[in-house]
């Protein structure tokens, strides 16, 4: 555990010293929050579009931000693999479990910090537009976002372990596009119906957004909150186990 903690400290320090992490993990989600708030301001009230209302937008942008943590995770792991630094560490008593924890823990910390900042920005915007966000809802949502953060970090870890520096980030970008679309971040997926809704429901991204928006609304019903949260938690657990297994296998190879 001490070895995992030492390695996670290294990963965290290297990340916060990389300007790219601020652009990917903080800058872009915050810019989207501001832009979409402006879009919402331009939508006539009678159109009944609620996706960009700050109480729906903030949790969705928090999920969107987590997808960038996935991208950054894949970049970090693939970059480490391309150099000899990991080779040096493979010749120490560090185990696959130490490496997995060492990569995942600091990324989770970054994801939580990113969500906190997103919610602070969302709260400020909500005060400006005159519909203050519920503080209790924000706090519950921050906790509800943990499984999805773990899930995205695990996906990034898998990509970073399996693919090189050139392939891992583009693959993560595909997941970001797919996740934004299927997760209903920029539109209300449930209002689409038909094959589109069925496809959305086949991905965990849909349930990430649904559970986060429900938590924000303090709607803790089974259909809107508990079942989606359960699905996201199960996916996060499965993908984390898979990512650790893949890394350990690669390490031995």
């Amino acid at each position: 555990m001490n070895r995992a903690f030492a390695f996670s400290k290294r990963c965290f320090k290297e990340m916060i010293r990389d300007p790219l992490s601020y652009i990917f993990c903080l800058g872009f989600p915050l810019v989207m929050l501001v832009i979409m708030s402006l879009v919402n301001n331009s939508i006539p009230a009678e159109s009944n579009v609620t996706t960009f209302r700050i109480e729906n937008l903030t949790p969705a942008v928090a999920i969107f931000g987590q997808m960038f943590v996935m991208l950054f995770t894949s970049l970090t792991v693939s970059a480490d693999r391309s150099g000899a630094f990991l080779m040096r560490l493979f010749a120490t008593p560090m185990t696959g479990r130490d490496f997995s924890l060492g990569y995942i823990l600091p990324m989770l910390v970054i994801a939580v910090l990113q969500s906190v900042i997103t919610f602070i920005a969302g709260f400020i915007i909500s005060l400006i537009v005159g519909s203050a966000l519920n503080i209790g809802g924000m706090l519950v949502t921050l906790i509800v976002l943990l499984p999805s953060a773990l899930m995205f970090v695990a996906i990034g870890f898998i990509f970073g372990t399996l693919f090189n520096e050139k392939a891992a980030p583009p693959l993560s970008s595909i997941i970001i596009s797919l996740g934004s679309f299927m997760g209903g971040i920029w539109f209300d997926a449930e209002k689409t119906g038909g094959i589109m809704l069925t496809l959305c429901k086949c991905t965990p991204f849909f349930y990430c957004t649904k559970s986060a928006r429900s938590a924000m609304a303090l709607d803790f019903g089974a259909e809107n909150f508990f079942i989606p949260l359960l699905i996201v938690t199960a996916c996060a657990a499965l993908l984390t186990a898979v990512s650790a297994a893949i890394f350990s296998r690669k390490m031995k190879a």
Partner: protein
Amino acid sequence: MFAVEVKELTKKYNDKTAVDGISLQINEGELFSLLGVNGAGKTTTVKVLSCLTDADGGEAFVLGKNCSKEKDAVKALIGISPQETSVAEKLTVRENLRLIAEISGFDKEKCSARVEQTISELGLGEVADSLAKTLSGGWKRKLSIAMALISEPKVLFLDEPTLGLDVLARRELWKVIESLKGRITMILTTHYMEEAQQLSDRIAVMVSGKIKALGTLSELEALTGKQGLEEAFVAIAEGSV
């Protein structure tokens, strides 16, 4: 007990045999050089001995511990300075050393003591708080060796430690390596004959995965009838003996 003992070691990558049934023994405190042209099997041998890859045949031991069956025990005994730059670029020199000290399992006090001791022994004081990415090639190599030494290894693998360095930086590193002689067993792979001649107690010449000659410099000179390591190496590598 030998520091390193290799018996009929073989390693294949698909159809290519990188190491072909080599056997050797290295004594404790010895500086042993592995020479060979590119693809001769030097780095593969080091990788097997440092538990980075498994052998396909034969056995390798570090201080009596089996490199395939007792990996954790072997890893606790060795340090490695790989061929490429192998430092955390966005950590400082001190942070890089502390990371390896912590991974080695030292307690907090010992970590701090080892970091300061290693900085002092390797003359890293003036760059201790600089980020690794800002260091010159020579300083990075020095840091790489320091990171291999901080865990107090009994056996140190130096895989082409001076590759790409200018003559002054290379001489500086030789001084560091010479200062460790006798205290730690070192296995050095290099393409620089002058380096092997200057530093080694014994030298093995590898050709196509096999050890073609092994001995002290004077023994290799006597075997080939040539003067100097470079001439002796060329004669052995070209199959003239």
